[in-house]
């Protein structure tokens, strides 16, 4: 990251504070892992109250970390305006007018008195994992207090512990914050680019600012999907337990989260549609991510339809099986962005 940006933003402070939070999360989730192992092994419940306290503390830390991320984004908004030298604004605006005249969705002209600012939602790049896992943690806490079965609780906690481990060792949002974003804007804030270079950088990053970072859909499309992912994870765990035992209370919890997940998934996907038209134009249909999302939605719809007949023994197990397939479809859909090319790719 450029030294210019280091001076403008409290990146070091953000990383240090976040590092402490994440380490505390890891310690607490280690405690929960021990409880998980004991409860999975023993026939009788153990340390249930202590585990509840640990789970509540993990949630509190998750929320604190999320607020910390929001604060950092506020710093980006306040301290990182996309400024240009005054004599460039006329040229930049003439270029924007040419682009706007050939496009259905135009970009606002550059106003030197009020330069554009980044309004980045707290769920992009590695932060999306943080948000997703935080949603799951909140749901796990609610389910923990609804269902007393200690083995069910243990599996619920095991998933949370794995997610915290993935955050700590794999996708830490605090250690190297927003690497893609900063790699894009660093040249503009680097040491002395020429006027033409500045204009070139601006014309490269401004459309992405308008259609991606500052897009209003960014505040709805991704978070709704991540809430849905959290719900599907709960549904998966209940489905696994439905295969083991025909317990109505477990099924009821699973169905409650299936409804929430389906609602969020459908609305999230629908809200991605006008955004895609605006940002990518018309030729994105049958993009791999769209295909996998459609597939996941179809599986989820099937689950909700078969669930109507779950009072039949065969349909009970088929519904549970579909709940598991739905979770696998979700993982597959998420990983699609890493393996398949297309508009959604992380490659």
């Amino acid at each position: 990251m450029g030294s210019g940006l280091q001076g403008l933003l409290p990146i070091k402070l953000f990383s240090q504070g976040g590092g402490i939070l994440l380490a505390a999360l890891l310690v607490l989730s280690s405690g929960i892992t021990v409880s998980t192992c004991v409860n999975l092994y023993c026939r009788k419940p153990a340390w249930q109250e202590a585990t509840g306290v640990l789970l509540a503390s993990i949630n509190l830390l998750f929320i604190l970390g999320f607020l910390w991320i929001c604060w950092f984004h506020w710093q980006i908004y306040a301290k990182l305006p996309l400024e240009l030298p005054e004599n460039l604004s006329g040229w930049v605006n003439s270029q924007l007018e040419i682009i706007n005249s050939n496009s259905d969705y135009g970009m606002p002209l550059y106003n030197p008195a009020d330069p554009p600012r980044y309004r980045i939602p707290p769920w992009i790049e590695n932060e999306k994992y943080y948000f997703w896992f935080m949603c799951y943690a909140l749901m796990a806490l609610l389910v923990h207090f609804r269902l007393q079965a200690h083995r069910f609780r243990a599996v619920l906690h095991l998933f949370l512990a794995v997610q915290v481990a993935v955050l700590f060792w794999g996708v830490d949002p605090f250690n190297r914050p927003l690497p893609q974003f900063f790699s894009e804007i660093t040249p503009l804030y680097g040491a002395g680019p020429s006027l033409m270079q500045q204009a070139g950088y601006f014309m490269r990053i401004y459309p992405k600012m308008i259609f991606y970072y500052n897009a209003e859909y960014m505040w709805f499309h991704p978070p709704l999907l991540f809430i849905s992912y959290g719900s599907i994870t709960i549904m998966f765990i209940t489905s696994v337990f439905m295969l083991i035992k025909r317990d109505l209370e477990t099924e009821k919890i699973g169905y409650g989260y299936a409804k929430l997940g389906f609602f969020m998934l459908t609305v999230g996907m629908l809200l991605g549609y006008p955004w895609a038209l605006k940002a990518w134009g018309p030729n994105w249909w049958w993009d791999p991510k769209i295909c996998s999302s459609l597939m996941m939605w179809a599986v989820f719809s099937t689950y909700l339809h078969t669930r109507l007949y779950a009072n039949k023994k065969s349909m009970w197990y088929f519904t549970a099986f579909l709940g598991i397939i739905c979770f696998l479809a979700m993982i597959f859909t998420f990983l699609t962005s890493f393996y398949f090319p297309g508009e959604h790719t992380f490659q």
Partner: protein
Amino acid sequence: MKLKSSYDFYLILATTLVLSAISLISIYGMFYFKFVQIQQMAPPLKIMFMNRMNAIVAPFIICLILLLGICVPKRLLPTAWLNRITAILLTCVVVTGFLYGVKASLFFILAASLVLQSIVLVMALAGSRNLHFHKKGYWVRFGSSLIHLGLIIFILDLFFYENKTVHLLLFWVTTGASILGMLFCFYAESVVNLIAGRQPASNESIT
């Protein structure tokens, strides 16, 4: 009554099969996209790919809408009449497809479903007891009708893809109907019960 229930059950199974087929086509589309490197092709070739995939999926969309077309009058008619209506719809779809192509056939079944679903929605809204729903409860029925209407309009909207104003307007109608439908279907009954201090309705339980 038993026959009616098994009719519902087989419709659900058929829907499951069609949705599974659409899932498999989606997976095929993904791998084809990757291995042929569609993203690096010129726009006309990309459009050819999209048209080809549309053609592959169209029969299954027709099946899905046909099933929906059967599901909708199922709520209105006794089984004997339902069989007749299904046979008529099926014949019309096949004849239209044979004479005017798959697109016209899809358009026909969508239009028929839209009319029927609108009738169901109005009847559900009026609290009609002549409707046959698997689930009980005013809000659940109303919500379910709205969700299915939203799905029909969404697919119908794809016909207006090139007319941006109509396309986006219909899209927002779809989105509104789906959101309201899911809210009513999934949560309204619980909210009403909570306010009235009643136990959750039986439609929430599978027993």
